[in-house]
């Protein structure tokens, strides 16, 4: 868990409460529908032909799973995938990665090993990775057979799911299944998120040093 977000969260504890907070990060080639998946899930929208999302770092949705409130913080690439220039820091402290390709675009599937290499290099080794084949509403243009993708996902020990952000197929399922898995893992870990808080630049506390020794 990103300790920074937690510190940040702590400040609004009075306004909202949740049992878990997870950082989910989307990756994959440009144009495979990453942003659409996020907006469909968080806002119930399918924005056709939209450009890059300006000014939004991540989107948030709180869901309830078996009586527990789970806050999902979903990060998008901010367009840096277009020229394969994603910053390493983007991968740090993600709890889950959604690696997305477009089932109607063979090239986006063939790039997956490259993405996996980035994950291996920069992501936390305990990160949960899901492979998502998006755009199943365009079944007639399919270039990547489901079985092939399933086999690939299995060989890499990834979960696999096919979605349509446009028709809202499997989008809920994708995020909710992921949330369930993350909860399970968090429970297995005794990890108490709140203990991992690192120093962060915020206001900090007032100088206490020396303030009471002026009488010396």
């Amino acid at each position: 868990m990103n300790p920074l977000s937690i510190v940040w969260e702590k400040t609004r504890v009075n306004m909202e409460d949740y049992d878990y907070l997870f950082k989910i990060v989307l990756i994959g080639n440009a144009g495979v529908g990453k942003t659409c998946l996020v907006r469909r899930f968080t806002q119930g929208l399918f924005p056709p032909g939209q450009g890059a999302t300006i000014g939004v770092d991540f989107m948030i949705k709180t869901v309830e799973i078996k009586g527990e409130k789970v806050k999902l913080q979903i990060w998008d690439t901010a367009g840096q995938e277009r020229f394969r220039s994603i910053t390493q820091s983007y991968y740090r402290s993600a709890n889950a990665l959604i690696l997305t390709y477009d089932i109607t675009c063979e090239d986006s599937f063939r790039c997956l090993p490259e993405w996996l290499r980035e994950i291996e290099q920069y992501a936390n080794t305990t990160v949960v990775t899901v492979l998502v084949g998006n755009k199943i509403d365009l079944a007639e243009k399919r270039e990547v057979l489901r079985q092939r993708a399933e086999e690939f996902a299995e060989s890499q020990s990834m979960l696999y799911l096919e979605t349509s952000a446009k028709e809202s197929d499997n989008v809920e399922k994708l995020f909710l299944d992921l949330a369930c898995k993350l909860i399970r893992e968090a429970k297995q870990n005794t990890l108490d998120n709140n203990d991992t808080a690192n120093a962060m630049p915020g206001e900090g506390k007032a100088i206490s040093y020396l303030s009471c020794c002026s009488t010396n």
Partner: protein
Amino acid sequence: MAADNLPSEFDVIILGTGLSESVIAAACSRVGQRVLHVDRRSYYAGNWASFTFNGLLSWIEEYKAGPSQEAVQETWREKLEEGEEALALSPVDTSISNLEVFCYASSEEPEEEEEQAKDTTTCSVPQTPDSEGEVERCLLESSSVEEDEALAADGGSPEPAAGVDQTQPQGEASAEAEETEAEQETCPQVEQSQQEQQEKPFPAESQSEPKKQITYTKIVKEGRRFNIDLVSKLMYSRGLLVDLLIKSNVSRYAEFKNVTRILTYRNGKVEQVPCSRADVFGSKQLTVVEKRMLMKFLTFCLDFEQHPEEYQDFSERPFWNFLQTKKLTENLQHFILHSIAMVTPEVCTAEGLRATQHFLRCLGRYGNTPFLFPLYGLGEIPQCFCRMCAVFGGIYCLRHSISCLVVDKESNKCKAVIDSHGQRISCGHFVVEDGYIGEDQRKNTESRQISRAVLITDRSILPSDSEQQISLVTVPPMEPGSPVVWMVELCSSTMTCMPGTYLVHLTCSSSSGSAKEDLAPVVSRLFCTAVSPEEEPTEGEKGSEVPTMLWALYFNMRDTSAVDRSSYDLPSNVHVCTSPDAALGSDHAINLAEAVFRQFLPEEEFCPPAPNPEDIIYDGDGPQGEGPGFDEADPADASGSQGGESAEPQDVKQDAEQTGDVATEETSTRCEPGPASEE
């Protein structure tokens, strides 16, 4: 991973992704400028970068191999129009020199195997399916890793490790790394107070087990756990960088730890500098009288401007002389001069007092020392600003350079650039890292050099109850005329080195020439080299006290921070970002970034806070019926609960109907006091 064409027009094109350039990129993009940010390297942050161990070996290889002269492309000639001339940029970077690598770690294989066996049997962490997958994944992908591996294998040192098999599949390393990492994650991270540190359940292997020898093979295998910075700096907790991170909300992209202690080298020993009030009073090195004297002096420094009578006579005279008049013992003078003010003895009193005051003001904001260090290394920070730039629409392109500038002869302005793919791209302003500027454009070729050493060691320079200390060590000149060296020792919880090792950065302004010559005297006094099992330690007691170096790198980095803009022969709308300076903080880079920004956007605010994603309310996306915003229940979401979001303050409601994109308008600043993680 798609090859796309770049747009043909930008407001600002920035070449180089070091700290200053990245801050400028974020600042421009934030206020709506169209920014193109490119770097010819395959990684972010230029000379501010941090590398995994294997990445660093590749970097070393690259520099050792020397400049790979690309075929000079004159194709851009035809892209020029009437009244324009081309100004070529330098295709090679000459900022790094005198690279020397030494490997002292044993390359013994047997121990390695034992270790592996042990690791797997003691592993108590349930493996996720993914962890097993990684091994396979890596093996399957051998073709794609080949490139890096080959470099890593070649990049080894010419020293004893030459015979080591460095080409082991990385997958194994990560599988193993996983265990240790998982173990680590189950324990709370380092806190500031000593008690907490003691309570901290450390991974069993780092405490109860006898010290295992760390082999070179192991370092290479665990290479991804290293994040080795080319530039070693700390963040003053009230310095410009921290202020900017907070103000701009860029701080949300990174995590930080406190530097836990300040040490100094004195009379042949490493000692802890009493830093906080508690340190001073708890110090065993200081007498009661000294404690009083120190507190009294520091209290004076905190608001020295209020007491001009105390120092006026000395204002322009050396700080050292001033300290001598202050009835401070030699002990205290050393601490104040070298570790608190961190100035040279000749520095004038006014400056020494200001430095002391700055240190004191930074104390206690987040912890016991005035410094923070970013997890995963300083190289994260430029990337965080790049992310901010991208979030506001900036376009990023690594492995992409600018071959030349197109200069309008009449106005002497850079109106466009031609990139390394031969594309002509118009721009209003061009910002470039010093390293890309050719000799022809430099009127003054003199520059300073920074000497750097990077060591991987097996134990801390000053062992304490906790193994997870982050230390700043100030080393006064070993002999008159030699440079002041400062050293940063990082523990594995900073995510910059593998467990069981420490990463030590040494930095000084070069005096003699090569980094090795400048720093070797300090290194040889504070560290020893590994003794191979065959030659039993002859100077046993000495060798066991100081940390053993497993690996060392020396290099010089050109320091152009003092080069004035007027020393470059460049069009007026071309702005140069000089290299990192030799100072401990990053104020220079931030000042420079703000100055450049002000030159071409004087009316705009510099890095205003980015909206908090949780405060953005999406309501401008077409007709209301199309979909609910955060503040409405989503009928499609059976299990959804927007309770949290509906409790959000409504004061930041925003409109974005025209683009369909969410609004970027500034929100109420949300820089609440992040509770300092101590107490």
